[in-house]
């Protein structure tokens, strides 16, 4: 999570710039604020189970991020926390289940469908990739790499579509040609998780 905070800090301006193009320009700042608060919270009192960490992430994002992204990411991490319960070490099938739960949470709150130009466009293909990786019996690093690749592709795919949810939807046709900032931050987070699990960062 510390790494995720660093990645989000590095990409703060990029995310805000994406949000400025089709939204209100605060997505980078929002995400950075949330994850910076998370680092502080973890330093104070780090939970020892994966589920505990996920729950802390959820509560911190909900109370620090605000905007659309706060409750959506918050719900995602909360549902993931519930899905992994108090498992000690996560295996690939559990990670796939957790990702699916996160997606379901985002959709339950935000009611976005694939192609609406939101974070769902990154998260949904990531979940599908994770599930088939788990089925193929791959390990957690490989599963997360597959999810991250799919999310990145999904984020790229948002460039060409017209926004139907969130602030960007007010732009109508003019939202076409810009990547969705929330999809981009989802892809960034998954890439970070994959890198950390693979020992790259």
């Amino acid at each position, binding site marked *: 999570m510390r790494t995720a905070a660093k990645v989000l800090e590095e990409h703060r301006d990029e995310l*805000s710039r994406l949000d*400025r193009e089709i939204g209100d320009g*605060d997505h980078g700042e929002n995400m950075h604020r949330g994850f910076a608060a998370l680092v502080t919270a973890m330093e104070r009192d780090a939970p020892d189970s994966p589920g505990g960490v996920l729950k802390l992430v959820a509560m911190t994002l909900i109370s620090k991020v*605000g905007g659309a992204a*706060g409750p959506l990411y*918050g719900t995602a991490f909360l549902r993931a926390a519930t899905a992994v319960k108090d498992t000690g070490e996560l295996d690939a099938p559990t990670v796939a289940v957790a990702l699916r739960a996160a997606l379901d949470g985002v959709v339950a709150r935000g009611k976005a469908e694939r192609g609406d130009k939101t974070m769902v466009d990154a998260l949904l293909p990531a979940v599908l990739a994770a599930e088939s990786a788990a089925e193929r019996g791959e390990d957690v690093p490989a599963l997360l790499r597959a999810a991250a690749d799919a999310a990145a592709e999904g984020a790229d795919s948002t460039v060409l579509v017209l926004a139907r*949810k969130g*602030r960007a939807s*007010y*732009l109508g046709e003019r939202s076409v040609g810009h990547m969705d900032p929330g999809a981009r931050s989802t892809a960034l987070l998954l890439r970070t998780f994959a890198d950390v699990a693979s020992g790259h960062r």
Partner: protein
Amino acid sequence: MKKIINDPSTVVEESLKGMASAHPDLIEVQLDPAVVVRADAPVPGKVAIISGGGAGHEPLHGGFVGRGMLDAACPGHVFTSPTPDQVQAAVQKTDGGAGALLIVKNYTGDVLNFETAAELAEADGVAVRSVVIDDDVAVTDSLYTAGRRGVGGTLLLEKVVGAAAERGADLDGCEALARKVIGQVRSMGLALAAGTVPHAGEPGFTLADDEIELGIGIHGEPGRRRVKIGTADEMVKSLLDPILDDLPFAAGDRVLLFTNGMGGTPLIELYLAHGIAERLLAERGIVVERRLVGPFVTSLEMQGMSLTLLKLDDELVELWDAPVHTAALRWGV
């Protein structure tokens, strides 16, 4: 970016402190989580009227906290909806035993955060209702978007419902009144130049010297259409026509006309625009019975304006005229 600030990350907090020192008799400000509460809260037996949203729209909402309007306001970061714990704190601080009505502007972030907050507050044992205001007619394809945004009409809603609550209306009554107001208030805005979010450092959008952005929201998000700048007559008409056609407003209707500045447009231009709107309404046989002119629902230093029309009846006129004592709106007291 040139602003009178110390640090982009402390703007909202420092501004709230300044607001607290400017109005010690009216409000109390709590910083973490950030809430502006009327000084005499909780008022026993009174429904608490609570609103909130991103900062940068001042005086909305903190400037409307006080007798006859809001019991509390929850300011988020600039243009970022507040978090559920802020709203939960506001409910706790204003709970007079009669429940709370949350006034939410229709933005995905606001709706989601207030939704969560309502769940938290209900768990605390307070009866909570929410209404979502979506008066911005600039958003046309509501089916394919997050829906219409809440803009200038929010002020009128807060004033009218605040007056009813002050008079003792119960939670059902306040909610029903709010839905009625939402049903008959419509707005639209335009920008000549965007404002700059402090931590972004650059304007939300850039317009050529001869362009305006029609149908802007109040969050620096671009509007729906970029057009050549016209005369004031043309610009006012381009705001008024979609409003009139939408409800629709018809000859003989009694209305409140609210000519709002976006923060960077001076009063001399707002009055000029207001005069044009009054003339156009008179030509259509629409009767302007109440009016408000000024920068009340702003978007930082955005240059631009919006028009809001609320269809009036005797009940609404009486509630509009009822005493109000807040930092930004005050009469009868």
